């Protein structure tokens, strides 16, 4: 009796564990993933330019900051990063939007927008570097175009590339700027930013200090910093940043900028003109 029960139990367990093991090694992504994005880099850049032109620059509620001193300071940081990306398909454009929000977003084609509130919030150029690296990560991994294709469909996006449908372009722009990336994409962008900062001789822990400051000041979640804090729990992102092991021989270099001066100019810059 007992022997017979053990035999039956072994059969049932073997069937269950066998099924589990077999289905664990099934390449699920082949069945469920959507087809790869078929949009070329050229078309993405074209779409990015249309969105920037129609959805950002022509929006009367958005003010782009143009100040030689601030642009120069921003260029120090962005040049450092862009020259260390390695092989890239995009020609990056960084613009500052006048706003108190602590936010930044990426549009197709390597167009990255930073809110002035975010720059003022950063304690150092290294922290800004960390945020920009993260946004570059979204661009390099093509997360934005991926989301747009998934949400709107490739045919709709192709249909606006002619540039005649301003309303539709504005709509796509709205979708692009309000896009919330999923956790996997955020992690990919974080991982990319660690490598990029390391290659740029910036300490990857700067991302941790930035997120920690955010958490300290605004708690775990705040609607004003939604895009940066896609997931309420930032602890794992802080942890990943702190635990990132730089390669041997890594020599941290401080970015030579008078950061207090930059913030002061940003706060006091009076003539904000569009474009």
């Amino acid at each position: 009796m007992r022997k017979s029960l053990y035999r039956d139990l072994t059969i049932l367990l073997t069937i269950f564990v066998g099924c589990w093991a077999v289905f664990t090694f099934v390449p699920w992504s082949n069945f469920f993933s959507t087809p790869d994005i078929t949009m070329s880099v050229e078309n993405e850049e074209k779409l990015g330019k249309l969105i920037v032109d129609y959805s950002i620059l022509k929006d009367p509620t958005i003010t782009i900051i143009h100040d030689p001193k601030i642009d120069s300071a921003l260029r120090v940081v962005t040049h450092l990063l862009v020259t260390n990306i390695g092989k890239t398909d995009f020609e990056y454009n960084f613009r500052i939007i006048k706003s108190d929000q602590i936010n930044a977003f990426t549009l197709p084609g390597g167009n990255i927008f930073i809110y002035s509130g975010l720059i003022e919030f950063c304690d150092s150029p290294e922290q800004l570097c960390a945020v920009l690296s993260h946004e570059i990560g979204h661009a390099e991994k093509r997360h934005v175009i991926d989301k747009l294709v998934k949400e709107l469909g490739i045919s709709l996006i192709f249909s606006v590339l002619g540039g005649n449908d301003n309303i539709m372009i504005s709509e796509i722009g709205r979708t692009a700027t309000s896009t919330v990336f999923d956790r996997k994409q955020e992690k990919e962008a974080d991982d990319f930013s660690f490598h990029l900062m390391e290659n740029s001789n910036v300490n990857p822990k700067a991302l941790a200090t930035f997120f920690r400051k955010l958490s300290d000041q605004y708690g775990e979640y705040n609607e004003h910093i939604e895009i940066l804090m896609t997931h309420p729990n930032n602890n794992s992102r802080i942890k990943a940043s702190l635990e990132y092991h730089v390669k041997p021989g890594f020599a941290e270099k401080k970015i030579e900028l008078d950061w207090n001066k930059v913030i002061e100019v940003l706060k006091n810059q009076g003539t904000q003109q569009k474009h």
Partner: protein
Amino acid sequence: MDTNSETGYHPLPQPAEIPQRDKEDAMGAYLMMFAALGAGLPLPIINLIAAVIYYFVNKKASRFVRFHTHQALISQIPTTLMNAVAVFWGFRIAISDEWDFTNIYKGYLVAVLIANLLYFIFGIIGAVKAHGGKMYYLLLFGKISYHSVFKIRTDEASETDQQKNLPPKF
């Protein structure tokens, strides 16, 4: 009493001997738990509670009914536990950064889905057999239930001996 002390088990009732009411009660054990399973989703525990209640309600019923209610009850314990683990695991993935939607979890979900489907199919077969007045033994659980319900317990055997009319001792 219908005992068979040679095998150590009560003899099995045959379809013709079983009242229609018993057949329906036995079938109800399987059908009731499917209904409760649907009601219990996504927290797969109500079906188990319902099965326990049904089992105790029928505790005084015939051995045929008790066998099927016992089998229906214990056979759903593993799938209930598997479903509970799947729900708990999925919940952790949804709320925690540390837990990812891994292939191990996907494999587990499919294995649990198969287990539930098999359980559903064998449960239907069990219900049909019970309605026909037949015994139906699920792998492992059938033997446990048969042993639990039909085994002649020592107290039952001695009671039987006491009730027997015996010839005078010479």
